[in-house]
């Protein structure tokens, strides 16, 4: 019985602080997002992030959720991604690839510093996480693009060729 109460107490406390943190971060982030949309900051700043999104084969619109996730972690990156998905700023392909990239590499300052404090090498961690995530994302992109091409062939055969040669 005490175990169950203990579990409930720990869970509730943890949830309470998580929700507080979410509100404290997400409300300013979403207000920022609205302002950026209104003043077309994404379109204007896209050229500066082109190298970053291009090396993941994503559209420049992916920069904002990408940077948010890299700095603040998966949950906040996901929150911005949800908003991008709602407003259809990103294609399904980009959404999935961003999800994959961020699940492997996020919160690069805080998490990496925690392990550095324990004795790990900061630059090894940073570099290997980027390499891992970029490789995985590019491989997934390759598969998605190939499947899309195949799917495209199946759903829209060129006229006269539906039944083979």
């Amino acid at each position, binding site marked *: 019985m005490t175990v169950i109460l203990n579990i409930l107490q720990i869970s509730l406390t*943890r949830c309470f602080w998580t929700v507080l943190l979410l509100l404290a971060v997400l409300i300013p982030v979403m207000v920022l997002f609205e*302002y950026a949309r209104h003043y077309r900051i994404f379109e204007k700043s896209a050229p500066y992030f082109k190298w970053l999104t291009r090396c993941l084969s994503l559209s420049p619109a992916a920069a904002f959720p990408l940077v948010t996730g890299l700095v603040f972690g*998966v949950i906040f990156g996901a929150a911005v991604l949800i908003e991008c998905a709602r407003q259809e700023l990103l294609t399904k392909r980009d959404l999935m690839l*961003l*999800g994959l990239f961020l*699940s492997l590499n996020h919160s690069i300052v805080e998490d990496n510093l925690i392990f550095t404090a324990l004795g790990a090498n900061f630059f090894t961690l940073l570099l290997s996480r980027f390499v891992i995530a970029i490789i995985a994302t590019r491989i997934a992109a390759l598969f998605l693009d190939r499947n899309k091409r195949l799917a495209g062939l199946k759903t829209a055969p060129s006229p006269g060729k539906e039944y083979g040669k």
Partner: protein
Amino acid sequence: MPVHRDLLRRGIVKGLKTTWMLIKIIVPVTLVVVTLDQLNLLMPLATRFAPLMAPLHLPGEASLALLLGFFINIYAAIGVITVLPLTAREITVLAVMILTSHSLMMEGPILRFTGLSPVINTLLRIATALLFGLIVNLAYTIFGG
């Protein structure tokens, strides 16, 4: 300034909506994760996986740190790492693995809406962690350090 008031209002509403969406995932998962942690349910699994730590140049006890990192969160893993006598090399290998693959039960469902199934995401992340743990370990063996 009606524009600012409108932008502010919309931003706040969206922040609240998104928070609510995330709460629906976070609360049940937290309950499961805390239960796993408090009842020490991962311990028997860890002893079974201990022999697999040898190719990673890690002591058998490190398997508990990995499992706690995978299924609970990095802080649970850190709790184990601090009590194990590990070299900088071993901690770096362990850290690469845990950082690529952690809080799987939380982060998988949160990213479901991107079209990435939580199961596939989890398997992919564990496989990636093992693969790159081996690679980083190999790099240390080859280049020294």
